[in-house]
């Protein structure tokens, strides 16, 4: 190879390298433009998705809040409050949704007051009914000579001046019962039909208790009689 041809080759090579550099720069620029435009498109579509999701969420919130407002749901009051809190937790910052939230809050508060008032009214009515029943029971008992007789006997035993006098009265009272082992129940507290009792005793022991303690702190609440009119079960209640 001559010196001339080597020089030509170098020139050619230099030109070609220069072209490659320029081409590469152009390609790089093109890729950058494509990437940027792709990025912008992606950002825009991301925003669009978020906006669409938010709009859907707002729509969903409106429907659910309206359902709460219209009382169309079968949820309990506690569940309704939970539903409201869930929607509030989305923090949608939408004027319509915020208005609906305020309305629902107001409605649920009123509903809660109504429920509370109803529960109080029910309780008052139940207590009044229990009082009425107790009064009716006591009225019938107060007129029943058997209740009066037993109550008086208990008082006599507990206030007897001597042991002998108390024992004499006990002997008079025991025949009212079918036997000296008739159970005596003493109610210490009562809530509706649920009763709490003291340790059960027998009539003989109870009469002796009155004699020993010299105080009559229980009143006759109920008696069960057999066909011969003898007491088979006695229930007392704390005065």
């Amino acid at each position, binding site marked *: 190879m001559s010196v001339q041809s080597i020089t030509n080759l170098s020139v050619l090579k230099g030109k070609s390298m220069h072209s490659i550099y320029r081409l590469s720069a152009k390609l790089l620029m093109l890729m950058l433009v494509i990437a940027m435009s792709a990025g912008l498109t992606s950002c825009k579509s991301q925003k669009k998705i978020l906006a669409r999701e938010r709009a859907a969420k707002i729509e969903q919130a409106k429907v659910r809040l309206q359902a709460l407002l219209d009382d169309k749901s079968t949820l309990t009051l506690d569940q309704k409050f939970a539903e409201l809190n869930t929607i509030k937790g989305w923090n949608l910052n939408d004027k319509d949704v915020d208005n609906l939230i305020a309305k629902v809050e107001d409605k649920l508060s009123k509903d809660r007051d109504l429920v509370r008032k109803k529960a109080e009214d029910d309780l008052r009515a139940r207590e009044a009914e229990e009082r009425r029943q107790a009064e009716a029971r006591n009225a019938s008992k107060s007129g029943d000579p058997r209740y009066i007789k037993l109550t008086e006997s208990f008082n006599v035993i507990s206030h007897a001046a001597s*042991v002998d006098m108390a024992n004499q009265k006990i002997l008079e009272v025991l025949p009212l019962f079918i036997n000296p082992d008739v*159970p005596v*129940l003493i109610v*210490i*507290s009562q*809530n509706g039909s649920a009763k*709490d*009792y*003291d*340790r*059960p005793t027998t009539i003989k*022991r109870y009469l*002796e*208790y009155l004699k*020993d*303690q*010299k105080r009559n*702190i229980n009143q006759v609440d109920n008696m*069960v009689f057999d066909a011969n009119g003898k007491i*088979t*079960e006695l229930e007392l209640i*704390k005065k």
Partner: protein
Amino acid sequence: MKKFKITIIALAVLLGCSTLFAQETISPDRKKAIDSLALEKVRDLSKYIALVGSKETPWSEAQRVIQRAEELFMPGSEMGVSSLYRPEISYFKVREYFERLMRLNYEKVNIDWYNIEYVSDLEQQPDGTFVGVITIFQRFEGFDKEKGLVYKDVTKKDITIYVKRKETQIGGRLIGFWDVLLGDIRVKETHP
């Protein structure tokens, strides 16, 4: 080994469940009624002590009353006795305490309990039993036939109280009741 593990787990679960069932929740009103019932049992005991201590109580009546008093206590309970004449406190089983009380060498004895109140409220234990402590003050007076009042002291005593929910059949019905039992009676202080 696997069967052994299963048995242990089953036992643990059963034990846990029984504890849960035992710990019945009590409303304030029911708790108040139980508190009052326990105080009443202590007042009953004070009356029994006064009756047995009284020289006017016939022997047969005193024996019957001792029996009733014993029924107020947990088996094996002890009662503390103190005197101004000796520093130590003696403890006796309930029946022995009452029998010694009957034999006291005085012409007349007055025993009065007062200021009966809770020093430690009834608290529910894991097995469902309520345990508390009631404190009482006892005024004791011993009289001689000729000299009159020859001995008197005031003793502060603590009584442990156990209240347990029990059930029994009466007339074919299942009756739930609160069984109040007294435990040891400890002497806290004695003075003239």
